[in-house]
């Protein structure tokens, strides 16, 4: 029966090719436009570490200006001070925690063919790797001794290892960073979580870092943050040490808290810590601390720009116009065939059989429009990638989920668009149309 309906549908579509083309292309353009916008939304609203969502928490402390709150999520700074970061690391109240920032360093390779160049390093603790589940190709994170003793060791990204060592196992090899010798202890596999949930300060779609070095090197190497530094109070003395002791926020702090109880304990610990600091004259604002899981963190940091939401909304209105258009055309087409319907009804075809036949026809149109629409969406995203730099262009990609969503949307929408015309047309009393004939 289905095959028969399908044959009828194709026959009917062929009978009126211009109208069919108009309907298919209206659906295709509508689906293409909404798939393009939805694909961007899909990438940007993703959570690359959803499976650890309720274990990883971004830590916020409010050490800001008593006269004016920080403009950020929960009116609190999104980063912490060096003072607080080192105190929280030392307390080690969470099973795992890490603090990190990005810094620029000059890399000199022992291979003279590679000219010195500037790399972006993530300066952090070894817990960074297991907490964020970074995949290793060779070796592994550095040991606790490197974190405590400011050892000159590094973990390379896949790209850096490719560039310096041609992708070979480089564990044990050395590179020069800012005129110091560093030993490679590990090499990551390709790792580019999108959005870059662990550091939203420097562009949520930015590339990952070139390599990783221990946080304990910050002080001896006087490493500056390449990222966002925010200060509200002048440093007491104008030296690097003065900056470390200042109220400037420039470090991202994450805690891994496996259970709700651990989370509550940690919150309590933070509150006590702030209370203690208040006694010492810091934290002039009302005491406030906040733990955000990854989803919350991505949301409150507005990783999905409002513009993308607006585009998605407009593209769905656009799709609605395309669908209204299609309903009108399908209705016109079906009504034109009233005579045929009347005849078939008079010859004994049931309403249900006819209804099914017309739904199959609109379903075929929808599927055609959907397939074409995926193509239109692909062209749209291709055009966007062309307009955007490689980092931002990362959002303009079509994955299989989106292809599925686009097709489903097309078929469901066109079936919905077909229901009313099909229902209208099968309710025609057969006698009326036979009479006109």
């Amino acid at each position, binding site marked *: 029966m289905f095959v028969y309906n399908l044959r009828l549908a194709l026959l009917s579509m062929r009978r009126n090719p211009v109208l069919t083309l108009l309907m298919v292309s209206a659906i295709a353009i509508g689906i293409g436009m909404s798939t393009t916008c939805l694909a961007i939304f899909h990438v940007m609203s993703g959570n690359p570490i959803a499976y650890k969502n309720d274990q990883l928490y971004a830590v916020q402390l409010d050490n800001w200006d008593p*006269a004016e709150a920080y403009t950020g999520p929960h009116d609190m700074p999104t980063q912490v001070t060096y003072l607080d970061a080192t105190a929280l690391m030392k307390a080690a109240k969470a099973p795992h925690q890490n603090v990190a920032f990005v810094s620029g360093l000059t890399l000199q390779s022992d291979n003279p063919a590679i000219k010195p*160049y500037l790399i972006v390093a993530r300066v952090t603790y070894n817990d960074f790797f297991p907490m964020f589940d970074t995949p290793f190709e060779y070796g592994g994170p550095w040991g606790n001794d490197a974190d405590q003793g400011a050892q000159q060791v590094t973990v390379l990204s896949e790209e850096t290892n490719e560039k310096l060592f041609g992708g070979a196992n480089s564990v044990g090899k050395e590179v020069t960073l800012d005129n110091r010798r560093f030993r490679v202890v590990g090499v990551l596999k390709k790792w580019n979580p999108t959005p870059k949930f662990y550091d939203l300060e420097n562009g949520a779609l930015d590339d990952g870092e070139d390599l990783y070095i221990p946080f304990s090197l910050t002080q001896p190497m006087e490493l500056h943050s390449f990222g966002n530094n925010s200060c509200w109070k002048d440093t007491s003395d104008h030296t690097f040490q003065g900056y470390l002791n200042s109220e400037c926020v420039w470090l991202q702090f994450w805690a891994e808290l496996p259970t709700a109880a651990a989370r509550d304990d940690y919150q309590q610990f933070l509150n006590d810590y702030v209370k203690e600091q208040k006694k010492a004259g810091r934290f002039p604002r009302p005491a406030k601390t906040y733990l955000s899981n990854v989803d919350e963190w991505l949301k409150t940091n507005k990783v999905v720009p409002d*513009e993308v939401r*607006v*585009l998605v909304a407009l593209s769905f209105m656009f799709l*609605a116009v395309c669908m209204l*258009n299609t309903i009108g*055309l399908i*209705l*016109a087409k079906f009504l034109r065939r009233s005579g045929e319907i009347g005849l078939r009804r008079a010859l004994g075809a049931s309403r249900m059989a006819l209804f099914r036949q017309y739904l199959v026809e609109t379903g075929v149109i929808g599927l055609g429009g959907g397939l074409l629409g995926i193509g239109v969406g692909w062209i749209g995203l291709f055009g966007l990638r062309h307009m955007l730099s490689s980092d931002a262009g990362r959002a303009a990609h079509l994955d299989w989920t989106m292809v599925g969503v686009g097709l489903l949307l097309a078929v469901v929408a066109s079936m919905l668009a077909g229901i009313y015309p099909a229902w209208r047309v099968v309710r025609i009393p057969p006698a009326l149309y036979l009479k006109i004939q």
Partner: protein
Amino acid sequence: MEIRPILSALLRNKTGAILIALQIALTLAIICNSVFIIHDRMVKMARPTGMDADNLFVVDMTAYSPTFNAESAIHDHLDLLRGIPGVVDVSPSQAIPLSGGGWSDGLYNNPEQKGANTGAGVFHMDEHGLNTLGAKVSEGRNFTHDDVQYQNQDTYIHPSIAIVTRALGEKMFPGQDPMGKVFYENDPKPVTIIGVVDTLEGYWPSWEGFERQIIFPTVFTRPNNRYMVRTLPGQRDAVMKVAEQKLGDSHDGDFVRHVRALTWYRDRNNESDHALLVMLTVMSGLILAITALGIVGLASFSVSQRTKQIGTRRALGARRRDIVNYFMTENWLITSIGVTLGSIFAVALNYWLVSLFKVPPISWYYIPVGVLCLWALGLLAVLGPALKAAAIPPAIATRSV
């Protein structure tokens, strides 16, 4: 033209008309608000920058040698760059204007730093800074060579004199002449305003304080040094190549990281806005086309449905013009219902956008202009089918279909 018979005919066959009216309503809402967003962003992008953006480029250098001496390297590089034919002026610069990244400070009117502060972008350049950007002081004086301090960024202490933009002066000292006035950063050391620049845009185009700038006569001695270079019109790209090559050959213990046009940074920072504008323009164009095709399709259908009636009317003495008028009026009625509904949709959608983007609401005239456009679109779209209807010979009434 009698409207009543058209209306009663419409009411007997509502569905097609409702579909078209809804399409027109949504189209009006989308078009008005797309144009609203496009206009808002275009105005923001077209603001005068106060600098010769098209003829500026940026050089970034990074030290690798353990014996690197930043101050002497900076002098060498400045001399080298100034010696290239086609270069108008050069200055070290801490950050890149229009790029979406830079330095900002909160400024206070009182030494105790009480109350709310005024945010401003901070430029650190030497006495050639303003001329390099292509800006001039309109009041007061520019920095002199003796004003300029070379400082290590770690031990940086802000200078006691500054040049500010007029927008910053107006915000801090409303209604007064900012010349000679004093402001404070996060310490009790006063900063005296010695010059005022009318317009100079800062680092973050989407920031409300984009027009408020301070220029300090400071050059940072760092491992990463940056220069801004202005060239004679049309010579930028050629000078960039020469500069990259010459700096690469200078042996100061640092290397050229990149040499890029200022417009590269500006365009990169504006790219998502630009992409948004293109998307909205394409969407608006397509929706007009689809709505027009929908009107053509349904009007053609209704003409073919009514072939017999049209023939009868013609046989009874209706002129061709009457038939055309009939379909035009019918379409005008449908469009009018659509745009009435659409105006409500447009305002509702705009209400959401305004709350999201914190921009002033849509100007009232957008909607009447949109309504006029859709009326015109509807009439144009229906013209073809209506003329076809008018061409139906009266004799058709006598035949059976």
